[in-house]
Every structure is written in C-alpha cells, then in structure tokens.
C-alpha cells in the first residue's frame, strides 16, 4: 500500500492479498450470487442497461481518485454536474445545435473546477472547506436560474448521446464506452507516466515533493480543473439521458463518488491507490446495486448494505492484520 518505494520482491501471497484482487473476487461473487438468485441478471441487454445507472458517476470517480490520491477532495462535483447540465439546457432553449450544447456543459464544468483550483492553491484554504462553499454556490446559481422550473426541450441529436448504443451487438451504451476510454487514459497516466509518479509523490509527502522540484500547486490546480471538466461531461450525459434538467439534478452524487473511490482502495491519507481498483469498485458497487434491485430490494436498503460494505471492507483487513500480529 505504500506509495513511493521501488518494487518489492515478488511474492505470490502478496499478489493474492492486494486490494484489486480482493475486489475482483468480490466482483465474481456478485455475478455468481446474482445469477443464482435471478435468471434475469445474466442477460446481455439487462447488464448493458445496468451500466446506464452508474456510468456518469463512474466518470467523476476517475479524477476524484487522483484528487484523493494527492490528499485533496472535491465535494462540489454533484453541483458542478447540475450546473453544466443546466448550461446545456439553456443553450438548447436558445436553439443551439447539439455540439454547442456539449461545449456549453463542458465549459461550465471546466470554469467551476478552475474556481475550486484557484481557491485551493492560491488562497490556501483546505479543499474540503472550499468545495463545501462552492457546492452551495454552484447549486445556488442553478436554483436561482431555474427556480422550481425545469428545462425539458433538447434536440434529438443531443439526447442520443445519453440514450443510444455505440454498436448494436454487443450492446455498449455510449456513456459506458466513454467511461472505459477515460479509465484507460487515467490508468496510463497514473501508472505509466512521470506525471503519475509525481501525483503519487505529492500524496505521499507534499513537502518532499515540493523540494523535489514538483510543481505541487500547479498540478493540484489542473486536477481540480479536470474534475470540473469531467463533472461537466457527466452532467451533459445525465441531461441527455433524461432529457430534462432540474436544479436538484445529481444531488448527493459527491458522497456516492467518494464512497466508490475509497472502496476502490485509494487511501484517504493520500499517496496510495490505483485506477484499476477504482474501476473494479465501480463494477462491484454498480452490479451489486443492479442485482439487488432486480430482486426487488428497496433502494434505501441497498444504501444501508453499501454503507456496511464500505466499512466492513476497510475494517476487515485491519482486524485480520491485528489478529495475525497478536499471535
């Protein structure tokens, strides 16, 4: 779990006990249990449809993983998604074509993210405090603009983004493909480039990273900007999927996204974590939710179960380690 040191000697037990392997085993368990419980789970179209429900949040989980890895956090992602969706909706109301709508949404997210980044890096306020404030501010702007109304008219070229399959067989929803593509890019950047090593170094020890010549503030600024941009993308996809935007869109997403990232094995203290872990966490949580709802388990009970899963999954390895040490 440590961040910086060079590769330790290869051990099979070490490989089997990594968090990613445990998550993969959990994913297999989720698939096996669900297909035993209901015949409708292992249906290609059902599984494809299940991805609609988590792809947007999953897209935000990728930059959030990098933020938490560098000891930052962003609680305003849901509000940025809502504001971006609203921007797309306003552009649609003005009769703009689909590409302008997408650009309006992405641009709004990027600007919001840059505001977060500036406040954190320039003014030096902790990011959890800044983003509690901007969360209210961004959501407040959406509330002021829309009031109790909603934007409902979107051109078909735009709604297709959130409702169509990229190819007919296997049925891959466009938003899911976007998530997979972004996950591949984030994996490469974090685990195969110098930038990725620098981010891990910042998370492991920001002061040492600064003295090593890493531009800590600049990298953090751009992480917040990218988080805003991808929250904007998630907001655009959400608006396209539902074809309607209200000020309370994407409400509470921040906690879902952070839960996904932490469950994916990214250390909240910074310096440790992997993108494949986060992707596996997205799948475990997403398909577990989908399977339980197929079994008619109420959504609120699923929330309880996911909360328990989060705590137990973090507590169990610590308890096991303590018991082993006590012997």
């Amino acid at each position, binding site marked *: 779990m440590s961040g910086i040191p060079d590769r330790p000697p290869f051990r099979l037990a070490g490989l089997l006990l990594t968090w990613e392997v445990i998550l993969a085993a959990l994913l297999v368990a989720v698939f096996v249990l669900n297909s035993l419980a209901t015949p409708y789970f292992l249906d290609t179209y059902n599984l494809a449809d299940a991805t609609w429900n988590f792809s947007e949040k999953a897209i935000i989980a990728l930059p959030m993983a990098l933020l938490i890895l560098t000891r930052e956090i962003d609680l305003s992602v849901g509000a940025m998604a809502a504001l971006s969706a609203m921007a797309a909706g306003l552009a649609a109301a003005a009769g703009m074509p689909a590409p302008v709508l997408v650009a309006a949404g992405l641009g709004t997210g990027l600007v919001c993210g840059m505001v977060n980044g500036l406040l954190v890096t320039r003014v030096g306020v902790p990011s959890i*405090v800044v983003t509690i404030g901007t969360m*209210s501010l961004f959501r*407040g702007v959406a*509330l002021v603009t829309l009031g109790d109304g909603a934007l409902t008219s979107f051109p078909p070229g735009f709604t297709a983004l959130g409702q169509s399959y990229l190819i007919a067989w296997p049925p891959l929803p466009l938003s899911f493909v976007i998530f997979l593509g972004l996950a591949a890019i984030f994996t490469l950047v974090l685990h195969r480039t110098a930038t990725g090593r620098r981010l891990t170094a910042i998370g492991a020890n920001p002061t040492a990273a600064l003295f090593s010549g890493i531009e*800590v503030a600049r990298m953090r600024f751009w992480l917040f900007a990218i988080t805003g941009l991808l929250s904007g993308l998630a907001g655009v996809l959400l608006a396209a999927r539902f074809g309607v935007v209200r000020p309370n869109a994407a409400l509470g997403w921040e906690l879902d996204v952070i839960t996904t990232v932490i469950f994916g094995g990214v250390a909240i203290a910074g310096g440790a974590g992997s993108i494949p872990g986060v992707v596996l966490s997205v799948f475990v949580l997403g398909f577990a939710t989908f399977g339980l709802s197929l079994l008619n388990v109420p959504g609120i009970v699923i929330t*309880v179960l996911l*909360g328990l899963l989060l705590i137990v999954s973090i*507590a169990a390895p*610590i308890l096991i380690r303590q018991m082993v040490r006590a012997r």
Partner: protein
Amino acid sequence: MSWLLRHREAALAILIALMIAGVAAYAPAFATPGSLLGVLDDTAFLFMLAVGQTMVLLTRGIDLSVAANLALTGMLVALVGQYGPDLPGPVYLVLAGIIGACLGLVMGGLIGGLGIPPIVVSLGALAIYRGMIVVIGGGDQVNASEMGISFQSFAQAKLVGLSSPVWIAVLVALAAHVFLTRTQTGRALYAVGGNPVAARYCGVSRERVEVLVYTLSGAIAGACGYLWVARYGVAYSEIASGYELTVIAACVIGGVSIGGGVGSVPGAVLGALFLGVVVNALPTMQVSPFWQMGIAGAVILLAVVLNARAEARHGKLILPEARAQ
C-alpha cells in the same frame, strides 16, 4: 485592525452586529426583540451540532454522520412516543442522548480502535443511519398527532422568551467550553489534533480521545434529534438532509481548523449564529428563497478566504510557497 484579526471571535461578533444593523436599516422589523429571539430559536440546533463537531474537528477528525444520527434518533424516540406511554420530555431527551451516544460510540470504536479514517467511517455511517430510518419506520412518517402531548410540549416550551432548545444549546455550549478549556481531557483534544506524535509522547491516548469525541458528538446529535422531531412535529427519513455540511461550515466560519488543534466553542457558536442571521435575514429582505443557497455558499467562501488571509500572518514561513500545500 490587527487586533481584530488576532481576535477572531471579537471580529466575528462585530461582523454579526454590523450585519444585523445593516439588515435592520433595510427591514426594521428584523431588529425587533421578537424577531431576533426567533433567529436564536431557529439556530439552536446549529449551535449544538457545531459545538459537537468542533470537538471532533479539534482531534483532526470529521463527523459527517451527525445529521443522519439526528434523523435516526429522532425517528426512534418518535416511535417510543407513539407506542410507549406519554413520558415527561426530559426522559425522551436523555433517552435520545443515550441512543445518539451509542451510534457515535460505534463510530468512535472503528476510528479510535481500528484506526479507520474518520471520513470513511462517518460516510458509511451516514448511509447506514439514513437507511435504517426507512427500514425501522417502514417508510412511514410519525406525525405530531401520534407523538404524545408531553413529548412535544417540552421542546416547544418557552422560558423568558426563548424556547427550550435554545436553553439546552446554552447549557451544552457552556459545558463544552468548560470541558475544553478547564479539564485535562479537554486539553488532550487540542494536543491530539495539534501534534499527534508529541501527544503520544506525553502519554495522551489518541484512541481514548477519539472514542470520547465521537460519542459526545453522537450524544449531542441524538439529543438534537428528539428536540427537532418534537419541535417540528414530524419524523421521517429526510430530516436535516445535508445538514452535516452546514454544521461544518459554521465551525469553519467560527475559526475551527479542519486540520485540527485550533478552535473554540465561542468561535463555533458565533459561526453558527453568523449563518443563522444570514439565513433568517434573507426572507425579511424579501429575497427569493431560491437565492438562499447561493448566498450562503458565497458567504462561506468569503469567510474562509478572509480567515486564510488572517491566518497567513502567523508563524514563520521558511518557504513561502509551502503555505499553499
């Protein structure tokens, strides 16, 4: 001016007074005693929860579960009020405090005993406690007519113009202030948050302190749960949804550091009062309720930015760029 920057509580108190004067100049009705007492009534819960959160923040922790704890405990005591005998109000208050303390103790055990990060535990607890409300209450709400007379009358009773939640908030704040400034355990909270390593070498048990603060924070949230449900006459799953962030904002405005070791009860109370005045002033100034959230956000940002500016003067900085990190 520099004196004001060094005495944050005084600066905040002056700012609140100026704000009340400013609002009163625009809408004189706001400055009447009745209206100002109403502000206190409305802010009582924020006072109590901010005091509890301050103790947690001092130890470098965070408790995101307070609003969910409040709602769950409120539902549980409302069910007791519905199906049990009509007990006197203080009995419910103590019962709610004990339930809340148990919910907090579980978190304290996971955080202090196992060393799981507070944000992880309280996020999980938030989801679990909120969900439990629906599971236990069967998705129904408990209405005022079902709760019992003495259940409600205690939380709605008035003494010298102020409702009982305000008086309880005053007692909680006084007790917490004495605890933090005059007792060895209270100082240990600052020690653990200010410098965990040094605290350990001084023989302060981080584990015990953490179990204690989450239990106290839970007890306060639980007591607020009873008072909230009894005052507004309804218990359901979405009570105080998202309120945990308002509580943290109040603490931060009051100068409690998220990084631990810095903060005071008077600061947290003034931070809560500041937010309470802002939220209550907007309707009297005929500002649309849709503006409320945006203005609250802008005010929080402004306050923390000014705080950061004031704090930047403290201490010797060997490497100025390191400040931002």
